[in-house]
């Protein structure tokens, strides 16, 4: 077991605010910014990350074994872990939970993560109720057989969709389980007033002794980020879950007292422009490269108050596999023009740029538009609601260019493969898919499979290199123009304690509720 912060104080309560409603706390379903880390505090999976880092560690599992072929994983479960309802968690629950999440009736948006488990296809097709590749060896041992070696499998066991749920509670509440979540997590649900407030209280029986530090976490729902910040400034709340609103960023940073309470950290995020590689003229790699060179990323970063760093490749810098040596495309208007001319468009062309309609995305789109105009590309902006942009991207003839901001890939887990499959691989380049550049390179798909079959943790460095090479190749084909990697700025109340990295935890967003504490309790 990892150590508990010796300075931590026990007790106290904090308040966190969010603008948008919390949809559900069912780990098989919740996939939003807000409920993602809430679920992590209510439920546990076999694996987890060390707080504030991207380092995997066993969680409900005490230990695990990987067969040399990389296709069989065996987990030993921790003894004495209890659900909030008092029953002990066993391997049957793990199996049940995975059967449930892959069952189409559950309608889980995360079912696809488990595609490498044997028997997945039958369950997904509704032909089987249970994953044949998951075997309960004994109440404290569970074995997974995969159809292919999968280096990401341990990460998959750490994501919310793999969290363990008690069968009896799920059956009791049926479709409403998401409103009555029962897990093994550090907190349990105490109150849920729809549309207003969710209250978590400390789980006294939490298996990880000494955690959580807080007695209570209250989530208040439905308020504008600007107002949330006002309330933080008045000391009414502790964490504005939606972050510092752009309109207030400079005001906050200009005040040393407030600035001191802002924690900055990296984020597994990349903002990029997709170019539909099946649509003329973006089917010409030179055009795509020209676009890459036309974008003035520094200016865009300046527009969002320097809350990001310019990006030159799909992976964000804090992701394993990020190629530090890669220089990407320079901002070079002349060269971009030359490339366009080579591609047969000396006078440019007209196209459309889709973007989501929430600030600052329309602004960024306009900056991109101006940059494109400088090399002769006249892009008209379609600023739409999220659902409409996604719909256009999933249609092969829908959108020539999309600015990904607002809907962008925030990694599900810290692994380089996570930026490939659905958004750059062939699997995503289908109607309704998320590969909006419709880039499908069979070669790279094979290379990706090869990289993912390197399961041995000792070879992780090697595997990262393989991924770097894949992304470098992608950049040569330039289906995307990466623009920036967002930085996270979490602001907290003065009374909150705990290491800074808990406040920019790469997986617990905005903060790691289990490990933070408040200073104003005895």
């Amino acid at each position: 077991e990892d150590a508990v912060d010796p300075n931590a104080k026990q007790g106290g309560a904090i308040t966190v605010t969010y603008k948008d409603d919390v949809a559900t706390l069912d780990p098989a379903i919740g996939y939003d910014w807000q409920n993602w880390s809430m679920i992590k505090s209510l439920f546990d999976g076999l694996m987890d990350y060390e707080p504030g880092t991207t380092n995997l560690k066993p969680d409900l599992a005490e230990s695990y074994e990987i067969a040399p072929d990389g296709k069989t994983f065996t987990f030993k479960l921790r003894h004495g872990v209890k659900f909030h309802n008092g029953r002990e968690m066993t391997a049957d629950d793990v199996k049940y939970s995975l059967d449930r999440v892959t069952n189409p009736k559950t309608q889980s948006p995360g079912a696809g993560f488990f595609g490498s488990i044997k028997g997945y296809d039958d369950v997904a097709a509704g032909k089987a109720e249970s994953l044949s590749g998951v075997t309960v060896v004994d109440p404290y041992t569970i074995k997974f057989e995969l159809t292919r070696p999968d280096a990401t499998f341990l990460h998959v066991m750490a994501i919310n969709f793999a969290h363990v749920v008690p069968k009896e509670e799920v059956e009791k509440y049926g479709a409403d389980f998401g409103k009555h979540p029962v897990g093994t997590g550090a907190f349990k649900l105490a109150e849920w007033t729809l549309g207003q407030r969710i209250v978590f209280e400390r789980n006294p029986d939490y298996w990880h002794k000494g955690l959580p530090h807080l007695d209570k976490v209250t989530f208040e729902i439905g308020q504008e980020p600007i107002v949330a910040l006002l309330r933080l400034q008045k000391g009414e709340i502790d964490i504005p879950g939606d972050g510092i609103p752009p309109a207030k960023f400079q005001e906050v940073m200009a005040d040393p007292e407030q600035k001191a309470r802002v924690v900055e950290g990296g984020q597994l995020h990349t903002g990029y422009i997709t170019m539909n590689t099946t649509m003329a003229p973006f089917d010409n790699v030179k055009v795509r490269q020209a676009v890459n060179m036309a974008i003035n990323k520094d200016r865009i970063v300046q527009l969002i108050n320097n809350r990001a760093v310019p990006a030159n490749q799909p992976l964000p810098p804090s992701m394993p596999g990020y190629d530090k040596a890669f220089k990407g495309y320079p901002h070079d208007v002349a060269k971009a023009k030359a490339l366009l001319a080579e591609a047969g468009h000396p006078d440019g062309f007209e196209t459309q740029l889709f973007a989501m309609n929430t600030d600052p995305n329309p602004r960024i789109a306009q900056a991109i538009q101006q940059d494109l105009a400088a090399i002769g590309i006249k892009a008209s902006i379609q600023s739409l609601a999220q659902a409409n942009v996604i719909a256009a991207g999933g249609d092969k003839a829908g959108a020539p260019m999309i600015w990904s901001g607002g809907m962008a890939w925030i990694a599900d887990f810290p692994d380089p493969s996570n930026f490939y499959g659905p958004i750059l691989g062939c699997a995503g380049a289908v109607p309704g898919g998320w590969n909006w550049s419709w880039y499908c390179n069979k070669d790279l798909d094979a290379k990706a499979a090869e990289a993912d079959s390197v399961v041995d943790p000792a070879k992780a460095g090697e595997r990262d290199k393989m991924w770097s090479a894949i992304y470098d190749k992608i950049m040569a084909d330039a289906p995307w123009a990466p623009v920036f990697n967002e930085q996270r700025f979490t602001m907290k109340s003065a009374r909150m304690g705990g290491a800074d990295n808990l406040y920019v935890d790469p997986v617990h967003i905005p903060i790691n509720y289990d490990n933070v504490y408040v200073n104003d309790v005895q």
Partner: protein
Amino acid sequence: MTSPIAPDLPATGRLPARPRAGVWRQLLKRRLAVLGLVIVAIVLAGAILAPWLTGYDPNEQMFDGLTLEGAPLPPGAKFWLGTDLLGRDLLTRILYGARTSLIIGIVANGVALSIGTLVGVTAGYFRGWIGSVLMRFTDLMMAFPALLLAICLAAVFEPSLWIVAMVIALVNWVQTARVIYTETSSLAEREFIDAERTIGAGAPRILFRHILPHLLPTIIVWGTLGISTTVLLEATLSYLGIGVQPPTASWGNIIFENQTYFQAAPWLVFFPGAAILALALAFNLIGDALRDILDPTQRGRA
């Protein structure tokens, strides 16, 4: 006492010599109305002459239009009304934005007003099944969420200024129709309408010459209030992807894009807001004066 008056005999009446003072002339006699006309003229001139009035391009994001931290510049010598979040000149954007907003606030609003008036007057005057059908349809439209219609239209059509104008017209006539309906039905009961019928006046004449003038105050109230409402509605619609898309400026979307910054950069909300207000007020001043001029019982009022 014996001068014959029959149509088949020559008429010998002496006509009054004094010509009638035209509405226009009367309007120009009123200080406030003139103020309104001047404001409208300024806005119109600003919209039409925008390219000659400013040295900037409305969509040009200037490097020196932002601070190094990416903050917009307050009003100053170079940028008279300051710059926006992308470093564009606000004055230029307001001037060009007037083009969009005038179309919305005047054309779209005018069309909505006309449809509403037409429906309301028809339903109120004819009653019977025409009236019933029209009013039930109005009720339906009123109960139907306009925004949804707008979103769907946006999905079907290529977003453009004219589409948004059409949507606004389609959505905004309903309330007018209801109010006009109520008023028309009570007007239709008035005895002078009966009197018109006995001299053989047909429905069009009664509706346009006798009922419509009485509805004028209501129409003016709704029309002038509609200016601000529609201009702001346009911003909501362009936010949903229907209507003018960035970077095209309109007063509504300048406000809408920047409203969260109203403390950090108040000029971004204040100036376009003032422009909308001025336009609406100007029309109200003209409308009020018109109403007085066309209402004979108000004569003698300066």
